[in-house]
């Protein structure tokens, strides 16, 4: 029986409780099940979107407590939101999940099978450039000295599954790139001023993607403003349910950008999706405005006419979940790639099924993520493409690692890198 007193919603308290209307919108039709990566691998109703909604609703209606078992079923969710795209009833699954996780997190309801130690470590590392930067200096040495080759060949890390997963994921680190100029002026006809989010993972692992983004934006007619003090957007904390820290990060990020900018541009699907939801979680004018003018780089470039030279390559496109499902961006990246003369874009089967990366998920649940990664790369291999592109750094790392593991010579890159390669400088 629902006996919602004023300060409770069943097992939830009212601070960031999942929305009852959202939970009630599910009519259990099951159309989401075949779209859910964890359901496809595990085949368990409790590890399907419908099952997770049942559990959240049971908690909201006071039929169950927030137990470690319940937490585990929610922990296993990748948060890819493929179920939202599939759902005919418009259940806002991502927001319900994040709200529920925030209550589990705040009350320290933890599943023994979930590695909260690693999660905490990663959440204290990735969003802080001041911590990640120095660590990567060390890792660069590890790679360049040949130590990595030895570790990988001899399998030193095999007994340490998590550490091995992290090590395997490490892409060849670029030399520390020079910081992007604070302002890159527009070329040609000026369209406006764009603020560029350089991300926390992107800036260290794929600085060339940020450089390419700035160059393309400038060619598209934008003055590109890169606030040097910008930190993390908080997406990882949002997905883990650490809403207080997320809100702090979001607030600082908003403050670091000039409110007069015409558009805020990201080239990382996960960040873009989080930025666009600032309005929901922060609920004030500044956040609403910031969210309202956030665009993925593909949304901005698709409206510009860029001069592109020929690239004769067979390319396939993997939909990052937080582009396809989080932001419903499917057409724009494909259209942009299709504009490169000579490029053959090959359809990827199940292109919008999660690759297993999902933020830090592949470090927390290496087995399940590995299975999804293997399936993804099998599909990629079937296309016969030489290059696979995707608009999110996490996907790039995960797919590249799976390609390495299979011994495939497939180039894994970001769409803007290909576009920048084709761009004819004015």
């Amino acid at each position: 029986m629902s006996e919602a007193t004023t300060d409770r919603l069943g097992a939830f308290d009212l601070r960031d409780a999942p929305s009852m209307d959202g939970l009630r919108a599910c009519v259990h039709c099951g159309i989401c099940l075949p779209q859910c990566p964890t359901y496809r691998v595990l085949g368990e109703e409790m590890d399907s979107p419908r099952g997770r909604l049942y559990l959240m609703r049971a908690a909201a209606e006071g039929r169950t407590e927030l137990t470690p078992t319940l937490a585990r079923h929610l922990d296993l969710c990748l948060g890819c939101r493929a179920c939202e795209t599939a759902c005919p009833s418009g259940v806002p699954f991502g927001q319900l999940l994040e709200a529920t996780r925030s209550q589990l997190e705040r009350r320290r309801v933890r599943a023994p099978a979930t590695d909260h130690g690693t999660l905490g470590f990663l959440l204290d590392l990735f969003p802080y450039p001041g911590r990640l930067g120095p660590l990567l200096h060390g890792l660069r040495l590890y790679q360049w000295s040949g130590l990595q080759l030895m570790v990988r060949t001899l399998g030193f890390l095999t007994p340490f599954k998590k550490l091995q997963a992290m090590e395997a994921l490490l892409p060849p680190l670029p030399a520390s790139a020079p910081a992007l100029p604070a302002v890159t002026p527009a070329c040609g006809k000026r369209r406006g001023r764009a603020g560029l989010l350089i991300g926390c993972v992107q800036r260290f692992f794929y600085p060339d993607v940020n450089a390419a983004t700035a160059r393309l934006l400038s060619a598209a007619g934008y003055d590109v403003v890169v606030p040097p003090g910008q930190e993390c957007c908080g997406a990882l904390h949002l997905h883990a349910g650490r809403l207080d820290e997320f809100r702090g990060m979001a607030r600082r990020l908003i403050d670091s950008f000039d409110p007069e900018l015409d558009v805020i541009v990201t080239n990382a699907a996960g960040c873009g999706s989080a930025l666009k939801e600032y309005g929901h979680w922060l609920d004030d004018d500044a956040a609403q405005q910031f969210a309202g003018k956030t665009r993925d780089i593909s949304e901005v470039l698709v409206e510009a006419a860029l001069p592109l030279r020929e690239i004769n390559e067979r390319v396939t496109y993997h939909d990052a979940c937080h582009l396809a499902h989080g932001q419903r961006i499917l057409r724009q990246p494909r259209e942009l790639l299709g504009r490169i003369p000579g490029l053959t874009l090959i359809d990827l089967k199940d292109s919008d099924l999660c690759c297993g990366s999902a933020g830090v998920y592949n470090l927390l649940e290496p087995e399940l993520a590995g299975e999804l990664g293997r399936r993804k790369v099998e599909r990629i291999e079937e296309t016969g493409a030489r290059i696979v592109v995707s608009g999110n750094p996490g996907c790039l790392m995960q797919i590249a690692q799976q390609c390495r593991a299979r011994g495939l010579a497939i180039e894994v890159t970001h769409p803007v890198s290909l576009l920048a390669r084709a761009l004819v400088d004015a």
Partner: protein
Amino acid sequence: MRAMAVSSPALDRALGDIVGREHLLSDAAALEVHAVDGVRPRWVARPSAVEQISRALALASAEGLAVAPRGSGSSLSLGNAPGRLDLVLDLGRMQRIIEYVPEDMVGTAEAGLSLGALGAQLAARGQMLALDPIGGASRSVGGVLACHASGPLRVRYGTGRDLLLGVRFVQADGTVTWGGSRVVKSVSGYDVPKLLVGSLGTLGVIAEATVRLHPLPPARGSWVVSTPSHAIAADCLAALLASTLEPDRLAVLNAEASKLVGVDGARAALLVSFGSVAEAVASQGAALERLAKEHRAGAAPVAAESWAQLAPALSGPVKLKLACEPRRLLHWLAELEREAAGGRLTVSAVGQGGHGVLEASLTGPLTARGLATRVLAPLRHELGREGGSLVVERAPVELKAELEPWGPISPELFAIHGRVKQAFDPTRVLNPGRFAGRL
């Protein structure tokens, strides 16, 4: 509640032995997720073979457990809430195709296989199972038969009753029975398959179904006829059915549902497809366009995806299934819309033109009283005078307790239902309470 403490661990062990420990669930989360209309079972068992269903039911029958079979779980809210529930038999692991003979156009599949997965395998040989309930690609073969669900293909191919040739099912006491045949023409024995279609798992658990298949047409084209009034839609529908045109799919859409296929501003619409050789498709389409024009309506070709776009049409929190005389379909659609508008409810409706079946979902400020007084009572009363019926196929649990999902049932008919149930399941093991009259 019956005493359960003593026998529970023993039953737990016995069920685990039957389906395998890892496929017997009894933790709170699993039970919550598999609850039927809010009624939690004590176990969820996932058999992988007919023999396991048989042993589980034999045990349930001996111990007086109440059992609910489950396919994809999409339609568990059909019927009354269970009177009691101990064991959910989840057939999701039973997904094999047992036999498929494309030359005979007959196939046998396990009950848990989804229509979508089966369809993909058949399509590779240019064939199909002609069952397409709206939004039903993920529903299971067994569940669709047990719920007697059908869709736009019905106009040409009929329902599960016409397509199910034979069935292997498990009776309440665990006896495995085979009914029907594996060929298209057969007259031997009782026609048990037809009895099981629509029985909602109250007479036996369908384990395998042998179904009649049809060729996929070599070419298909779809058209939408948009009409400015219900009367004109009714005229168009009547003219179409009386004509020599042979649609292979037909759906009557109300204004809300027609938006899903890109129609804006029509009071009603007909979504029609022809399946044949390309020339015949084109000429039938042209004839449909002429027919529409003669009735002051407009017909235009639409993409093949339009049919898939109908999937969300019936996904509101309340779903109704209304049966009436075929020629009165649009009349009852108008009545439903009128009553719903009075209660500030939005109706999205898909009708089976030619068969007098109208499925509709309702969204808006729903209350049990509002539904009962605004929609159910007046429509059931008027429909009853014409021999029609109205079933609430889905409603939120908190409302459902106060509704009569099945509507009135005549004493004569109920007596027959009672005798059939008595013959198949005298101790009321299978889905007790869920069928009409709480059988």
